[in-house]
């Protein structure tokens, strides 16, 4: 497998834009990535499009608008990890030598369709009997609180932190601070998770241009290297594991660390899947930033704020930046790229050299997480 780099990234402002359709959201983000890369559009040989709720053949429809047709185009869906899956798909084809240059993008238009919690398949054995994503994560929170003494305040601090970070992110859906009291006293969704502990729904798009490292020099002098790409699915609930942990994230991150030849202590920053505050706390532990059970105390220690020992979600995370499903995975990667290049403005993590993007999609039909994608990038 040969080394692959990210040459360019693009991302729309995330938010609620019911007047904008998928094409209006996606086209500018894709052009931004292409221009950022220095690669002429005609050189793109393959494109993967991540999307969950939209139309058939969405990738082709978007690329027709750009005048990019005739190439290999694949549309992928892996719930919240759709964009990461698109990125991995392009990575794999370039790493294996099939192509030199590819485009990965993701987009979602939710505000026209969704109000409140996302409704899930009514025939699935779990979601058809009342499981919605907030209840799944609320159950993980209750288990974590019972086993490790994690408090409601510690959960809420994740939201406080990520909202504060997003004040420096002009593309973030929310760009204002929330106090601990505001988070704790917002409407209860599923005990113990309150409204501001659940990410918003919204609209947006993101894109990246990937290129084989040995070709990248034609276009850029400082490409960002993809040191690891891992995509794995969860195991069945019939092998009951501790729900105050994520077997899937632990397994996927270990594979990623092995691939990159590093450990969690080598990371300068992370973007992790904080669709719900408990998610971030769990993933501190599952990604090896702290021992099992210590995630609540880690966020309380302020070490995961920008300026702390190991900043997590400097972009604002899903909680504040937003979570248009198909767009999230590549938006996380875009943030890592900007940070590694020193282009993150007021939210810059000092001297960032190695970053990790973690995305966790869905929980359906009896598995612990449908798709966990981990990417490690370095400059």
């Amino acid at each position: 497998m040969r080394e692959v780099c990210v040459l360019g990234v693009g991302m729309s402002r995330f938010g609620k834009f019911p007047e904008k359709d998928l094409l209006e959201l996606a086209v500018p983000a894709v052009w931004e990535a292409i221009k950022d890369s220095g690669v002429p559009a005609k050189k793109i040989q393959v494109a993967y499009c991540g999307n969950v709720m939209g139309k058939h053949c969405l990738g082709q429809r978007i690329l027709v608008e750009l005048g990019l047709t005739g190439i290999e185009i694949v549309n992928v869906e892996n719930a919240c990890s759709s964009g990461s899956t698109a990125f991995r798909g392009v990575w794999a084809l370039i790493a294996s030598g099939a192509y030199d240059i590819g485009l990965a993008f993701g987009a979602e238009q939710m505000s026209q369709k969704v109000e409140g919690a996302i409704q899930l398949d009514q025939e699935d054995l779990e979601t058809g009997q009342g499981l919605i994503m907030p209840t799944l994560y609320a159950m993980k929170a209750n288990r974590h609180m019972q086993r490790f003494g994690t408090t409601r305040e510690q959960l809420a601090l994740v939201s406080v932190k990520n909202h504060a970070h997003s004040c420096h992110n002009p593309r973030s859906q929310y760009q204002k601070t929330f106090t601990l009291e505001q988070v704790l006293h917002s409407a209860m969704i599923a005990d113990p998770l309150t409204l501001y502990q659940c990410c918003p729904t919204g609209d947006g798009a993101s894109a990246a241009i990937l290129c084989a490292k040995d070709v990248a020099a034609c276009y850029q002098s400082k490409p960002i290297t993809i040191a690891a790409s891992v995509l794995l699915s969860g195991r069945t609930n019939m092998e009951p594991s501790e729900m105050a942990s994520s077997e899937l994230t632990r397994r996927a991150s270990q594979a990623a660390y092995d691939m990159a030849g590093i450990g969690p202590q080598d990371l300068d920053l992370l973007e992790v899947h904080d669709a719900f505050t408990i998610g971030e706390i769990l993933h501190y532990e599952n990604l090896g930033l702290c021992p099992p059970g210590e995630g609540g105390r880690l966020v309380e220690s302020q070490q995961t704020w920008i300026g702390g020992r190991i900043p997590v979600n400097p972009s604002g995370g899903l909680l504040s930046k937003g979570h248009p499903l198909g767009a999230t995975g590549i938006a996380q990667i875009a943030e890592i790229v900007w940070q590694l290049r020193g282009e993150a403005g007021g939210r810059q993590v000092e001297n960032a050299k190695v970053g990790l993007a973690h995305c966790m999609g869905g929980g359906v039909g009896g598995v612990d997480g449908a798709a966990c994608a981990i990417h490690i990038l370095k400059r």
Partner: protein
Amino acid sequence: MDEARDEGKTDRSVPFRKGLFGPAGNSDQEPRLIGAQCLACGKYAFPFRHTCIFCHSEEVEKTFLSRTGKIHTFTICRVPVPHFPVPYAIGFVDLPEGVRILSQLTGWSEKDLQVGGEVEMVVGKIKETPDGQEIISYQFRPIKKRI
């Protein structure tokens, strides 16, 4: 055996899915979940499938699972979700066979629900379709301790 009646089906109610539960012996016995036991590797699973999901053997038998278990974790959903009553309680229940079931919880009050709490299986209405049809399924309720 009157399958429809055993599954609680009436004119206005239907089971969530066929074959998930039934009476263990005589039709007046309490219903139990119908799971799978693999004769090759010995593991249990729910719901029943003809091939073992662990070792892929086809030597799988239908078996009735235990009626009681423990709550691994739970929550109370406080927001309106189409078809479901609000609030409703939902949890992961661990049965002694090593099987974990996601199920609505019934007959609860907030103080009854605890991680590790013992629960027993019942059958009841879990949701309603827009045209008023009741959907019934397995549920678990806290076992009240007799003093």
